[in-house]
């Protein structure tokens, strides 16, 4: 049985830093203000020819480093490559953040005296270990759109379709088409794929 392998791709030639992805994610999962599971980072702002924006979140890596270092083994990786974790097992130690090349794990300061709470990160809208679409899953992890067959909301909302998510074959196809039609510059692989998917 051939399973799809889900991947994100953000086309920096199309990303206009509209932050639609950031806000869509925050709204859909009702995140506390200050936690941005997805963030748009812009370098060289204001300098013509050099300004560059891209949208970053968890890449759901193959042999995810976060999963490797977790002392309580709260991560689990689905067949389709989506990396999720159990917030009830997580102790908020921060090791996954140190391991992650993309800075995806975040720690809301909602413990006592503003201490670090448990880790929160992009779930590719696939929820968590709780029962699918239950109220508990919704509260802890946000929407589970994958279970409903829907596209993760960040890519669904992307204004210019810079951010694409889906099976790697389909995403690579789109990537190659765009690169070919641009017809200039050498593109190895989509940004970040060399670190995420070995």
């Amino acid at each position, binding site marked *: 049985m051939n399973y799809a392998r889900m991947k994100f791709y953000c086309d920096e030639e199309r990303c206009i830093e509209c932050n639609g992805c950031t806000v869509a994610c925050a709204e859909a999962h009702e995140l506390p203000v200050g936690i941005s599971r997805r963030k748009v980072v812009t370098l060289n702002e204001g300098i013509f020819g050099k300004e560059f924006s891209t949208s970053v979140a968890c890449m759901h890596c193959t042999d995810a480093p976060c999963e490797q*270092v977790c002392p309580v083994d709260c991560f689990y990786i689905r067949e389709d490559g989506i990396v999720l974790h159990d917030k*009830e097992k997580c102790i908020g130690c921060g090791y996954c953040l140190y*391991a992650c090349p993309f800075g995806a794990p975040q720690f809301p300061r909602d413990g006592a005296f503003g201490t670090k709470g448990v880790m929160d990160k992009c779930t590719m809208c696939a929820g968590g270990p709780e029962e699918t679409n239950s109220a508990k899953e919704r509260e802890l992890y946000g929407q589970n759109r994958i279970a409903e067959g829907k596209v993760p909301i960040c890519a669904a909302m992307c204004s210019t379709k810079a951010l694409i998510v889906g099976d790697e074959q389909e995403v690579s196809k789109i990537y190659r088409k765009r690169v070919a039609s641009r017809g200039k510059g050498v593109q190895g692989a989509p940004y970040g794929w060399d670190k995420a998917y070995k």
Partner: protein
Amino acid sequence: MRKFMFLFIAAILLATVAYATDSQIWGNMRLTNILEYGKENSLHLGPLFVKLQSQYFYKIFFGILIGVPFVFFLHYLIVGPKVFSHGGVKIYAFSAFKRIIHLFAVIAFVIIVPTGLMIVFGKYLGGGTIIEYARHLHGLATILFTISVIPMFLFWFKDMLPTSDDIKWMFILGGYLSKEIKEIPAGKFNAGQKMWFWVATLGGIVMIITGAFMYLQDFDYGIAKLFGISQIDLLRATAITHNVLAFVVMALFFTHIYMSLFAIKGAVHSIITGYKEEEEVKYLHSTWYKKLKKEKKI
């Protein structure tokens, strides 16, 4: 108590200052961090941390956790404890202040080391809330430890400086490998105790600092800039340092417990009452004994 509250409030305030600045991890540097990860001429701290944490650390911790006590268990069976008479003169070694501070340190360590191990082996203990509270306790106990380590460092600093006796002591491993009772070259504190002192205080301070870095996570005190690395690399280096130093601290902590509670019968009373047995001092801290005799203190 007031000192405690003061320090506590200061820690919180300092923490809020750190949070007020822009993110040092999730800001614009996030992209450069991605590019740096595993790059040719980077420090490779990311991949290094992943490798060490996933494959080596827990094994080493387990080894020390089982190995060190086991070695001492064997020692107890084979060599056995040293016994000295408790009839002689009592020599005053530790003032009340020192004993109280040491007590704080005891409580702190007794909380810190097991909770630290609970974090390391979290997955075998089921993870979740218990381990999360273990982590919180680990941090809280650090505050207690901080209060004790600074005075302790200051009042025993001079006594713990290395002397020529220490080299001699090392060669015979303090005489603990034989049942023979003979004079051992050592001052008020022997080389073993000195080793433990420096690891516990200086190492302990490094543990406090690295622990604080991991606790505060996203702060900007210019430290990463000082080393010329990114904040995330600083955190990775911190995590590695904290774990590696933990090996040493843990091993020597077990040693200290064995030495003070089992290896010498009745030695623990000295840290409770403040008085050491004359015979014990005469043999195990011969240089100090001779000095006291010369100064007519005995």
